[in-house]
Each structure stands twice: as C-alpha cells, then as structure tokens.
C-alpha cells in the first residue's frame, strides 16, 4: 500500500513531488518551528529539507521510508542549525518555569510552555518534539537521532520531571 502511493504519484514529476511536499510539509515545518521557535528560520530549514529530499528521491522506496527520512533529516538539520548559530544552550536544571497556573486551556500558558521547551538542550528538545508532536516511541526516536534508546529514555524522563516540577511549583500557588 505504502509503495503504491509513490507509484501513483511519481515524485520525480513536478506534480508528484508537489503532492509529496504537501503531504509532509506540516510535519517538517512543525518540527523545525518547535525546535527553532522562529517561523522564518523554520520555513527556510523546512524548504532545505525538501530540496534535499528531491536530491535523494531515488533512494526512497515507500511513503513510510519518506516519512522516516524526513524526520531524521529535519532533526539533524535542526541540530546543525543550532551549532552554526550557537543558540544559547541551557542545562535542564536552569530552564525557567512556566509561572502561570495551568487552566484547562490557556493560550498564554501554552506559549510559555513552548518557550520552556524551546530552551531545553537541543537533543532533549528534539526528543520531546518527536515524542509529543509525532507520537514516536523511544526506539523510533533513537533511530531518527542515531543515539541509544537508553539516552532517549533518560532525556525524556529528565525533561518530563523538570516540566512537572515547574508545573507543581506554579500550580501549588493556586488557592481554592
């Protein structure tokens, strides 16, 4: 089934490739956006990923393979981008807490949460993004980032513990 998607809309044609881009653009753009917290930079990075995809099309055999490839390349490009621009790196312990209490849905709190996520160290940030945006398991994340599964689990555990600590501190101040 996955193979027939590529066969029906050959990605080496203009229309086929445009369709391929449209199918995956949200995923690629979102990973970049949540990592970089900069729409313009995320757009440019996402475009670069698809240009690279075009160059590597012959090697990709199925839609699933394309999806995996895109996640992997986007993740690595995000890390390269951070390294080149020397974005400030903060250790997990130094990350500021989202200070407002969290009602059922608060756009300001959500914005703060995204800021907290964006200030995590690069690998931890990508792991959180791949886990909660893409719903990937630890093994898939490990494969995408070329790191051991144990490292993924450790980063995830520490990131969640940190976020929980910040939330408990802020929600503990709410009076009823």
């Amino acid at each position: 089934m996955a193979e027939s998607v590529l066969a029906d809309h050959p990605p080496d044609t203009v229309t086929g490739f445009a369709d391929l881009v449209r199918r995956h653009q949200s995923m690629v753009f979102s990973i970049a956006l949540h990592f970089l917290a900069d729409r313009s930079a995320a757009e440019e990075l996402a475009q670069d990923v698809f240009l690279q995809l075009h160059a590597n099309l012959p090697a990709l055999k199925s839609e699933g393979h394309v999806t995996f490839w895109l996640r992997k390349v986007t993740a690595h490009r995000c890390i390269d981008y951070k390294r080149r621009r020397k974005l400030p790196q903060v250790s997990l312990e130094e990350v500021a807490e989202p200070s407002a209490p969290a009602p059922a849905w608060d756009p300001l709190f959500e914005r703060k949460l995204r800021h907290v996520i964006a200030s995590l160290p690069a690998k931890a940030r990508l792991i959180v993004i791949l886990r909660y945006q893409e719903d990937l398991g630890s093994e898939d994340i490990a494969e995408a980032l070329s790191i051991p599964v144990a490292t993924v689990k450790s980063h995830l555990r520490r990131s969640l513990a940190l976020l929980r600590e910040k939330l408990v501190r802020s929600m503990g101040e709410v009076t009823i």
Partner: protein
Amino acid sequence: MTHPDLNQIEKQLKNALRRQNAPADFAEQVLARLAAHNSIPQVRRDPRWSIFTQPLVRWTAISATATCLVIGGIHYRSLRRERAKGEAAKQQLMLALRIAGSKLQLAKAKVNEINATQTANRSRSEEE
C-alpha cells in the same frame, strides 16, 4: 488540589506541540527554489551550442543568468520578508482572539459558579 500527574503534563505537551500548518504557498516556494537551482545553463558538446564556446558570448550568458538569479533572489527574499511579517501579524491576531476567548471562558465559569452557589443556598433555605 492534586498535583499534576504525568498524563496532564503529557496532554499539555501534546497540545503545545501539535502540528502547525506550513505557509499556504510552501510547496510552491520549494518548487520555485528547485527550479532556480536547476536553471543554470549547461554547456554541452553539441554543434548547436558551439556559439557558447566563444568567451564573450559565454560570459555574457553567464552574467545575464547571474543577474537574473540575483534579481530573482532579491525578489524572493523580499517576498519572504513580507510573508514573515504577515505570518507574525497572523500569529498576533490568533493570540489576541484566543486570549479574548479564554477570558470569556473565565467569565462564563464565574457566572456558572455564582449560579451554582445561589442554587445551593436556595435549596438550603428551603430545607430550613
């Protein structure tokens, strides 16, 4: 008040990290960059292209192409800047509407609370 459990945090994270739409013309932008990347003329060993073996002609063609690419690049960057500003404005708009919506929700919740309290008080006084 119970402490937030992992499920709640994970729900918050899933919500905050939900996929966002790429700009509407994203695919077209990719194709445009692909076309620009592939549009550099190639010198072929073909009699019909022999005119390009003449240095003056070759350099004129390369200069003209480079100029077009630079102008195209400037135009592209200008469009990108314009779109970036538009996207930023859109984000501000959505934020403002969401803040308004969430505060209306707060008002609604407070009104419901008053109503519930008054109903409870009325029932209590009726029992007495």
